[in-house]
């Protein structure tokens, strides 16, 4: 039985990247559709009427929305290979907690770093770096958050690495200096094909952010 898998996405979205990595880890063939978010396709509006956002995973015509929900879905359907969540309930709860932490802390704080100035930006920078440091602590001596192989937390977090040149330039921060273990972990993840093929180049993301800042009147 052939599976039909489509991903509605937007190339710089870290949320979309999560689903790309999960699909790649499981070796699933799929059709990639890049959306123009200023002119959303009828398909996107039909598949995600509630939020009208990407990413949307479409499996045999059925949509799954919200990136972490899609990643868990992929893990449960294609459970015979490359498990992303651990099998022990307590370890699974820890993985879900930390992925939720990434959702709550990294995107919003990072956003403040490239869209704000002055005090608000300073607060954003502190929040962002504090969150990275907490994650470094959580990683400990393990090569990946998932242990010997990448797992749910790695997948939820590594996409933001593609935005680091933008955060560093507009925030005037040196992430490698502040969080060397984090950078080492990110580079280790990038050695995996599932990750390197799913993340855009940092320079390409940087150019995109420059354009966005112009549109927001930030330049």
């Amino acid at each position, binding site marked *: 039985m052939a599976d039909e898998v489509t991903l509605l996405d937007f190339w710089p979205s870290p949320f979309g990247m999560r689903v790309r990595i999960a699909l790649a880890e499981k070796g699933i063939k799929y059709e990639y559709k890049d959306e123009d978010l200023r002119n959303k396709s009828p398909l996107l509006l039909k598949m995600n009427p509630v939020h009208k956002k990407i990413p949307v995973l479409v499996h045999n015509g059925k949509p799954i929305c919200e990136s972490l929900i899609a990643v868990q879905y992929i893990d449960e359907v294609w459970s015979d290979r490359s498990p992303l969540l651990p099998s022990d309930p*307590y370890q699974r709860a820890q993985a879900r*907690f930390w992925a939720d932490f990434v959702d709550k802390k990294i995107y919003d704080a990072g956003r403040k770093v490239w869209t704000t100035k002055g005090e608000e930006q300073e607060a954003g920078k502190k929040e962002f770096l504090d969150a990275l440091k907490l994650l470094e602590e959580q990683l400990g001596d393990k090569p990946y958050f998932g242990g010997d192989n990448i797992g749910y937390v790695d997948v939820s977090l590594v996409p933001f690495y593609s935005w680091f040149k933008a955060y560093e330039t507009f925030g005037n921060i040196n992430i490698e200096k502040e969080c060397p273990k984090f950078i080492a972990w990110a580079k280790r993840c990038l050695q995996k094909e599932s990750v390197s093929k799913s993340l855009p180049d940092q320079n390409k993301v940087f150019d995109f952010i420059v354009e966005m800042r112009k549109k927001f009147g930030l330049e």
Partner: protein
Amino acid sequence: MAQENVKLLGVLGSPFVCRVQIALKLKGVEYEFVAQDLQNKSEELLKYNPIHKKVPVLVHNEKPINESLVIVEYIDEAWKGKSILPTDPYQRALARFWAKFIDDKVFGAAWKSIFTIDENEREKNVKEAQKAFQFLEDELKGKFFGGEKFGFVDIAAVYITFWIPMLQEIAGLELLTNEKFPKLCKWNQEFLSEPTIKESLPPRDPIFAFFKGLYEKIRASAK
């Protein structure tokens, strides 16, 4: 089999804590409820939830689990008995979607509808909350969000059953009306009459008094 030691750090009156209580009750898990003073956080709370310092925290054989929906999924996986999430991966994805929707779209808007002083801000939040209720109204196809039996989404939505009617009474605000949301209001009644739910809810009077006091305090400070 190791001796099960289950503790729930919480406060009476928190809808997030209530979610966990419902899940534990559904699985027949015996536990110790350790009431917290959130104005003066205990060492135990800070030890078990150093990141967010919030309730609920479930402590199972000394190991902490945080975030109410993460805890409910953990309870479903760690203990046998009645299922909270469906077994089919697609149905599970839908259940997680709607539970997250409630977290993201209902809580904040409803709270701000009640407690915001500024008229315009309040109007804006009322509209948002009602937009969220409409999505849930349309999503409700059976007796419960979980079908014939209540499940993950119903448990996530307990805020709508007990807290929202109370808060709107306190504020004299018509947020969730039978006129606009007949299915959701019927669901409220069905859910509230389930024994597991009735036994997991906090007593109404002290919670009502607490929120009424908070409401009056906020209005008084605005004058």
